[in-house]
Each structure stands twice: as C-alpha cells, then as structure tokens.
C-alpha cells in the first residue's frame, strides 16, 4: 500500500502543477482503467472537484457499454464532459478495414487534434503509462508537442527533479502524463484500495474471457481469463507473461511508433 501512496503523491503533485500553470487545460478520458484512475487522482488532487473539462475522442466504434458508463459517471461526479469526433472522416466512411493505422490516425489522432485546435487547449493530461508499450517508456511527465501536434522524441527538454516544462511557444501544447510510473498491476491495486468504479468489461462474466485493454470494438479482442474480481485480475497479472496490449491490433509491427510520433495518445 505504501508504494501506491507514493505513486499517488507524485501524480497528485503533477496534476496540481498542471492546473497551476495551464489556463486552458483538459484531461483525456477514454473510460478505460488507466484514465479512470487518472480521473480519480484529479478528484484526490482537487478535493472532490475536477476543475477542467474531460475530453472523449469518440470514434463511434467504441463498445456501447463504455458510453453508458461514461455518461453515468459524468452525471454522478458532475464532470464537464466534452466529446469530439472526426465527423468528416466518418462521413467519408473511415473504418478499420481501410487500414488500422489509417483508421486510428483519422479517428483518434486527427479527432484529438481537431478537438485541441477548436478549443485551444494548451495542456492535455493523459493516462499513458511507461510499462504499456515501448514508445511510452520514453515520455516525459510534461512533454511538448509542436504546432502540428507532433512529438520530437529525439530532442526532448530536460526534466529535473520535480521541475517540469510549463512554458511553451504560442501554437504548441504540452502533454502531461501523471501515470508514467504506474504499472498495470499498480492500477488494479489502486482501484481496489480506493474502491474506484470501473467498467465490468474487464471481468469475466462466466464465458472465460475478459478485456485487458479497451479500445474500439473491431480492433480489441478479449483475452482468455476467468478473473471475476479485482483480486483475481491482480493475481492473474502477477503470473502472466503476455503483453498488456496484445489484444490491441494497432500495436502490430511498428504501428504504435508511427502513430505516436504524429501525435497519437
């Protein structure tokens, strides 16, 4: 439990730094376990309040239960929910059969970029974790994006002690990553410790399968699992040798690397 409180203290500090320095700040919420823990940490940091909007980039292909859960929590926790969608790409018929990376780029990366541009957000808080996937392991807590939303991973500014990059030229924005040091197990341990409501797609409901990572319905497959409680999930993860995002189709080959350089979350 001590290690979870240490992670919590660090994330809360980062969230408060973000809130102090960015006038136009927003948090990305995908309703998955990570960004929901992030949302909970915001309520911790701001004593029950969430003083910035929550953005959901809706690809229209999300699993329906996720949208129900989103709207319920938004009501109960009095969240300022902002939903964005790349309507132009959808109208043109974009879907995963046109290429997974192409579809992610159009509906998620470009959907996000449109949303950021329209609302003029200069700070965006995301729930990415270093242990999820190789490119995310190289992120800073405060990571600048250029005018096109691109990430120059070759020339990242230094990040010293608890001093972060909070000033930036006009037209650029900063991605803020308070969960960088959390692992998948930490997320579930914390959900248990704090009793955070999560979406039950993560649990086996008697069919011997559950989702380990949530995304769009066509590109996310459940894993074989009999985990019916959070305790079961934690126990399962202690013994697993399968990668967390193995059920996420866009990770194949160099997919994530290409996506993230261009501003994918």
């Amino acid at each position: 439990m001590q290690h979870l409180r240490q992670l919590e203290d660090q994330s809360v500090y980062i969230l408060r730094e973000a809130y102090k320095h960015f006038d136009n700040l927003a948090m990305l919420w995908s309703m998955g376990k990570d960004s929901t823990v992030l949302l909970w940490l915001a309520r911790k940091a701001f004593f029950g309040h969430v003083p910035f909007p929550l953005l959901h980039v809706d690809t229209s292909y999300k699993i329906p239960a996720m949208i129900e859960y989103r709207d319920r929590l938004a009501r109960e926790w009095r969240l300022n929910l902002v939903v964005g969608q790349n309507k132009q790409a959808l109208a043109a018929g974009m879907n995963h059969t046109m290429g997974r990376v192409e579809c992610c780029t159009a509906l998620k990366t470009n959907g996000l970029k449109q949303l950021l541009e329209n609302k003029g957000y200069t700070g965006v808080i995301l729930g990415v974790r270093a242990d999820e996937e190789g490119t995310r392991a190289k992120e800073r807590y405060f990571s600048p994006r250029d005018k096109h939303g691109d990430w120059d991973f070759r020339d990242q500014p230094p990040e010293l002690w608890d001093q972060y990059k909070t000033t930036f030229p006009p037209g650029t924005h900063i991605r803020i990553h308070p969960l960088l040091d959390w692992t998948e197990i930490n997320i579930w341990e914390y959900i248990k410790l704090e009793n955070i409501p999560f979406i039950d797609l993560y649990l086996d409901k008697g069919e011997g399968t559950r989702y380990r990572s949530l995304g769009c319905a066509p590109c996310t497959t459940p894993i074989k699992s009999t985990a019916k409680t959070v305790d079961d999930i934690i126990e399962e993860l202690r013994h697993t040798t399968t990668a967390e995002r193995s059920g996420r189709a866009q990770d194949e080959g160099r997919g994530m690397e290409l996506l993230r350089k261009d501003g994918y979350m």
Partner: protein
Amino acid sequence: MTMTKIKTPENLNIVIVGHVDHGKSTLLGRLYADTDSLPDGKLDKVRAICKQQGKEFEYAFLFDAFLEEQEQGITIDTARTFFMWKGRQYIIIDAPGHKEFLKNMISGAARAEAALLLIDALEGVKEQSKKHGYLLSLLGVRQFAVVVNKMDLVGYRQDVFDGIEKEYREFLGQFKAVPSQFIPVSAKLGDNIANRSTTMSWYSGPTVLDTLGAFSKEAARSEQPLRFSVQDVYKFDARRIITGRIAAGRVKVGDHLVFSPSNKRANIRTVEAFNIEPPPTEGQAGQSIGVTLDEQIFVERGEIASHQEHLPSVSTAFRANLFWLGKRPLEKGRKYLLRVATKEVDCEVAVIHRIIDTMDLAQQQGSSTVNKNQVAELTLRTKTPVAFDLSASFETTGRFVLVDEYDIAGGGIITELVHDDQEFLRDEARRRDFAWVKGEVTVEDRAQQYGHRAAVVLITGGRHTGKSFLARKLEGRLVADGRHAYLLDGENLRRGLDADLSEEERGQTTEMARRYGEVARLLTDTGLIVLSTTNPFGLAYEEASQAIRTLVHPAPVIAVHMSKTEEEPPPNTDVTLSGPTDFDAATARILDELKRRGVLAQAIGAKPIFQYSI
C-alpha cells in the same frame, strides 16, 4: 494455481548511466531475460523485427523501442522499464550515452534513488565516466555501484579490473563519492548479472542483481525540520486549502506555521483529503497534502512553510554549482527565470566564479559564459527575496533550475548564502512580524470595506523631476475615486519622529530610510495605499527604496522612476517616466499598474489576482 501472495512494499528508482557503447541496454536486456521478467510478447516482437531486418538478435534491442535506435544501435532517450524482484518493484531508467547524453542522463538520474554506472573494461576510465560520476554526485545520487562491463574482451583479467577500480575510486574520492561496489561483468554473456560468473572465480563480491537488492530505500526525510513549499491555494468550495508536497519533516493539526519570505503565521486547523476515512490529522515528507489554517492569511505559491524554530534562509543572492544544458550559453548579466521548489522569480547571474572541468576537476577562471554541458560555480541574484536552504542540509529546497526562454536550461545546488545589504532590515522585519499584535479586524475585512488592498507607490528620481507633484496628483485622483490613499511626505517625519537624530545622522540614508519604511509598514497595515517619494533621501534614492521595500514586504511596491532625460532606472522599476512628463498620462499608467497588480479591483467580471497580504 498456487496462491502465493507477493507483496510490493516499495518502489525503487534506479538509473543506469554510462558512455554510448558501454552496454547499458545489453545489461538491462540480460537482467530481464535471466530473471524471466520479460513478457512473451516483447521477446517475440523484437525477434520478429530483427528477422525482418535481417539482423542478429541482441539483448539490447529489447529496450530500444524505436526503429531509429535499432538502426543506429543507440538509445535515443531515457526510457523507463519495470522490474519485480524479491518483492521490490524497480523502476529502471536507461539513460542514453550519445551526444545529447547529458540532458537525458541528467533527466534520468534526477529522479533516481540509486545508480549503476557502467565502464567498458576495454576502454578503461574515460572522460564520460568521470563526467557521469561527478554529475551523479551533483544531482544528489549518493548510492551507486560501478559495473565494469565487457570483461570477456579483456580475457576476464583481474589486473585490468583492479586497475580500473583503483583509478576510478581515486577520481571519485576527490568529491567524496563512494561507490557501494565494483562488479566485473559481461552483460553479453551473462557473467555476474543475475548469475555468478564461473570464469571470474577471483571475484567473490555480489552480482548486479544482488547489488540492486542491497540498495536501500531513500532515508525518509520526515525526521528533518519541516519544509513545505506552497504549491497552490484552492477555493473550490467553502474551504481555503493550501496545497503542496512536504519536502522534509512532518506537520499535524495545531502546528504553528511560519511562511517565508512573507513572515506570515497561522496554525493548521485541518488536514484535507478526498476519500480517506477517518480524515488525516498529519502529513510527512513526500506526501502531497492540503491544509486549512485558523486565520485567513494570504500566502502565495513559492513560500516555504516551516516551524518557527527552524526557518529557511531568505536572501536575494546565493552561491551555487550549476550544470548548463541550454542551447545558447549561460551569460553573465542576462535574465533567467529561477525556480526553487515551487518559487519562480526573475534572476540574473551576478558572478561566474569558475568553470569546472569534470575531466580532472581543474578550475578555469575568468569566463563570462557557461557553455552547454559545462559545470560552473556562480552567484545568482534574484529580483525579490527567495526562501531556500543549502543543499547540504535540505535537498529539495537546496536545489534549483534556470529557465531560458521556454525551456529548463540548467540546474544546480545551492552551496552558500550570500549576504546582501538588506540582511539587517530583513531580520528586523522578521522579528517585528513574529511579534506583531493583531486586532480583530483582518486584512481581508479592510480590503472588503475599502474595495482595494494596501500598497506602496514609491516614486524615485533625481531632483526637480516632478516626483512630489505626481504624488499629490495621484493622491487626489485616488481619493476622488473613493480609494483610501495617503501621501507620506518625508519632511513630516524629519521634525517629529526623527527629531532625536543628530544633524549628521539626518544627513545619512540608513536610519532615515529605516524609520520611513517602518511608518509606511504601519500605514499599509491600516489598509491604505501609501504614496511616497524619495525626496528626503536626495540622490540616495536607490539605497532608500531598497530599504523601504524590505520593510514593507510583502505589501506590493509599485516603483515609479522619473527623469528629465533617458537614464537607467533602479532595479525592479515598474513604471519609467522620462523626458517632459504628461502628468495625466502618468497617473493613468500608475492606476493601470495598480489594477494589474491586483491592488485595485479590476472591471467587473475580471478575475482579481490577490497575491499578497500583510
């Protein structure tokens, strides 16, 4: 399925540093593979990419996420990996060693609690290894082991290993750094990483894995005196919560806190938290907390709360060791933003004492710039007083970064307090504020009634520049607008309050300015906007205005400088008026400045910025 309950009682941040090609990624890959810590997906994916590119698989590739890296065979940026061993979770930071190494190595090492420093047995102790060792020490990483890699390439010879150990220990000894261990390994072949080497029977010390296990968790700083730097003040609901992370020591409900440099004081009424039952009543080092106080004092971000018996230093200058990472060199006299804990203030480099050559620790004097990747000893001077500590006593409040334009461009540790000429007055102000007897009416009550906060408008300048005329005009305008303003003329102190001074003493600035400042301090406590000129001090206006500032702190001082021709205004001047003065325009500019500083309420709907109190 066996239900063995594994506990994860702590996290430990480890950084691996070393020159490019010395085998950091290989060491890491080996460590994971030999302890069965890799997810299946990872190994398969990397093997597949290697096959596709027609390359032989190497352990290093496991942690080189980007294709560009694999193509160049180097690690581009600091990466975090996670590793569980014997109930402890390690966050391992792989810090790259190529040309941009310093920035990334420092970013990695700055968040580490322990380090593994790699040296190539074939190359021996080179410049990079020395620089790394010196920087680890400067960054405060005191716990580290030296891993001598590629022993297979020197025939596993003990004399090579012993030679490197001797040379490197001598170098580290110059700045009192003591590694916990020297370990001979071959990361490529797996000698002494997780498994004991069979080819180096002459070595009986621990393996790399054993060494990680022997690193201890950072000693809790809870036993030190309290340092709690204010991060933000929230008022989302009825509670006014002061938040921050406790850098050292502990706090509990009822504690009497002193905030530096404003010298404000109050007791902790509650410790606030979300979803914790029962609510906490205390906090300790490392925790991000929120407290409410028993009095409505206005403290701002950057102040350091402590207990009264162990106060931090306050000054406008300190001496420091700094490493510079900026794209353009650090220059003497140029303005930078200084950040110490949560405090942000403009500063300039007053003196560059010497550049330190990390190769042989020789000192090079007489430079007016510090180039990228250089380490220097210098004195910094801040625009307003800052609370800080020496890094030898308090790590978090004893280190700082400098921001150049948009980027953090350097960092350092504070080695010495530099006494400035305001020290005596600042001590007087501190003693006076600690003993100040308050009535029932608070500063906030007065501000509510008056529709503005207290402030001092201080008009400086040479003789016959129109200072008095402007002060009178401003007083008239403010009172006509319904503000509570008062012109404090030095002449009125001269014959009364200063009557006990000899003619000679009355001709000197020091005591006159002290008395003037104390009177201004009293008037600001009544909630007035005090209009003053430095007329009584003649041409010694710069010295006098410094003293007045120190004594009325933290009430805002709006400094106005008047001159007949273009001239350099004193430091920290807010409004400069030179040439023939248009007094209506000058009045309007000062009123705007009062609004901007949050003294006068802005137009309806604008967010007032109340950043100080008395």
